[in-house]
């Protein structure tokens, strides 16, 4: 049985249930010993057309697989308290203890990213950036009474934009239900469904408060609309020269082409600085992040430098344990990847900037943070305006076993300077409460009173001021009314931005 101890599954003959594995504290059989030994084996084929390899097994086999899998690949495997799988009723219950219980110096849990999902749900695919809805991206500033749901932005050419749902628009009623004050489960369900999960083709009527204080009633029909990840390209004259700006909302496939177009436009315009608005960008493809970082810094600054190096746990110092590839530093990507209509291998345009202003908030996460970290790793000055980022320098290879896909943290991204410790995110100077890695800049609330890309919008205005004077606005930049997230240290105006597949019943609460 190889390593011995926990195991004893015997041969893997098809159709026979393997004997129950035994737990011996601190002794781990290879995860492969228990892989695909399922209480309910699946028949048929997976998304790649391969026949499921599931064999008859048991819940105990599945839990032993989780135990060994975590021991092999979990980034903090040596902080897991080894417990007998038989003492736990379900794989989900057991998975919950297969992680570190340590906390960060700020008191936050060290591992916030332990998660699982049904594999058939995880495998679902969509056209890039397509969401069911009206084309509006909502921010939930208060999920409980009195609730506050506001439009962060609307995608162009959608019912939301054509109905006038501009940034800062608040929802007062939906289908006759008071969004702010409704208390019954049934009413809240109506609200959640109508705002966050409308069926394509369904129509709902909204009473809205516009940023100017006026009210309007609109009826919108939901559909499947593609988002534009790059928007609001601007050039702003300033005392330090022409400053470029754009919002970058999502690291999805179409972003490759749109980022290239944006950078070409900004380059041709001769900008001397760039304000990159990442406040609503929760991450996605790392390749896109690498390309954008390259286009900002340019070929000279990135030559021979690492965009990022993946660091796994101490058992895997040289080889990626999932792919088998060498853990060499990953260079900045200087060419297209074929994500868009452009063929792969085309050189990317570049700005060659030596500093960058990023606008951030709590929804700035993962790949977006990697842009910041990678550029800091090559000594590009990053100025941060807004609020603390989410703090996710980690990643995983989602792994299926017996119909559940498990997300256990496997690696950390390290920049060219060897830095990747920002589990509390990046914080602009002046941040109070939980403070991450502090960057020069200004703590500024989100400002729903003005459009994104408006030079008077509080965060952009602060960025422009900081470029010109090196200081922050003397008074806190104004933000539309809003309250901090429940139990959060965040600034007013920092809210949750529900994704397209959030569980509808936990967005707004009774």
């Amino acid at each position: 049985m190889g390593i011995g101890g926990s195991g004893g599954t015997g041969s893997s003959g098809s159709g026979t249930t393997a004997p129950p594995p035994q737990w011996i504290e601190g002794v781990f059989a290879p995860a492969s010993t228990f892989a695909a030994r399922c209480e309910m084996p699946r028949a048929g084929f997976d998304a790649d057309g391969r026949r499921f390899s599931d064999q008859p097994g048991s819940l105990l086999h599945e839990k032993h697989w989780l135990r060994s899998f975590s021991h092999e690949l979990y980034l903090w495997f040596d902080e897991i308290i080894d417990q007998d799988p038989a003492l736990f009723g379900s794989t989900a219950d057991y998975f919950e203890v297969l992680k570190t219980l340590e906390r960060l110096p700020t008191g936050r849990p060290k591992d916030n990213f332990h998660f699982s999902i049904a594999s058939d749900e995880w495998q679902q695919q969509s056209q890039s950036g397509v969401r069911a809805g009206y084309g509006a991206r909502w921010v939930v500033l208060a999920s409980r009474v009195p609730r506050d749901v506001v439009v962060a932005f609307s995608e162009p050419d959608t019912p939301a934009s054509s109905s006038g749902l501009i940034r800062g628009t608040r929802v007062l009623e939906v289908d006759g239900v008071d969004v702010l004050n409704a208390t019954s489960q049934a009413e809240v369900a109506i609200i959640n469904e109508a705002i966050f999960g409308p069926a394509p083709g369904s129509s709902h009527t909204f009473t809205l408060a516009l940023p100017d204080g006026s009210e309007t009633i609109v009826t919108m029909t939901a559909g499947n609309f593609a988002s534009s990840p790059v928007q609001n390209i601007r050039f702003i004259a300033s005392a330090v020269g022409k400053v470029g700006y754009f919002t970058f909302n999502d690291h999805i496939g179409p972003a490759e082409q749109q980022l290239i177009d944006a950078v070409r436009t900004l380059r041709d315009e001769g900008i001397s600085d760039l304000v990159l608005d990442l406040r609503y960008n929760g991450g996605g493809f790392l390749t896109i992040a690498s390309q954008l970082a390259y286009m900002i810094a340019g070929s000279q600054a990135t030559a021979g430098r690492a965009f990022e190096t993946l660091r796994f746990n101490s058992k895997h110092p040289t080889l990626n344990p999932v792919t088998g590839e060498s853990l060499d530093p990953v260079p900045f990507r200087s060419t297209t990847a074929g994500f868009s209509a452009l063929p792969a291998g085309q050189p990317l345009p570049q700005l060659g900037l030596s500093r960058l202003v990023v606008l951030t908030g709590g929804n700035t996460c993962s790949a977006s943070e990697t842009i910041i970290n990678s550029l800091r790793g090559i000594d590009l000055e990053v100025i941060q305006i807004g609020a603390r980022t989410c703090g996710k320098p980690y990643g995983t290879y989602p792994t299926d076993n017996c119909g559940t896909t498990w997300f256990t943290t496997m690696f950390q991204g390290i920049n060219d300077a060897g830095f990747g410790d920002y589990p509390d995110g990046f914080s602009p100077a002046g941040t109070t409460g939980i403070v991450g890695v502090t960057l020069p800049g200004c703590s500024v609330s989100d400002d729903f009173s003005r459009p994104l890309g408006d030079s008077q919008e509080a965060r952009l205005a602060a960025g422009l001021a900081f470029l010109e004077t090196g200081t922050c606005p003397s008074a806190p930049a104004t933000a539309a009314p809003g309250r901090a997230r429940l139990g959060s240290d965040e600034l007013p105006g920092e809210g949750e931005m529900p994704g397209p597949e959030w569980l509808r019943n936990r967005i707004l609460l009774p």
Partner: protein
Amino acid sequence: MKAIWLVGVILLAGCLKSAVEAETPARLINVDAASRAELKAVVAAAIGQATVRLADDALIEDGVMLIERTPRTDNLGHRLPGRDLGAPRRFQLFRAGTDCILIEADSDRRWVLEQARCVAL
């Protein structure tokens, strides 16, 4: 014999020419429920799924369509995976004669969309 050879060359050249013309980047027109359903079914089958979410205007604007895993969020609202090491799958529409052909870039697999109408870009 020489004449036959020459005719053969001309015919071959013609075939090559039509083959080159056979696949011109295209976009959909006059999309109706049937053609939309067919497109959705073809793409779903291509990616090994029972269904797939496509934009209401898929392939109408530019003829290129990227497919990726539907974004999920964890219990804290963080996007999964926030650091994705993968890549989307790219499909492109071409017109060949009167046929509208969907081609997957990486695999070069192709499907004729029987219900679709398309025009060259």
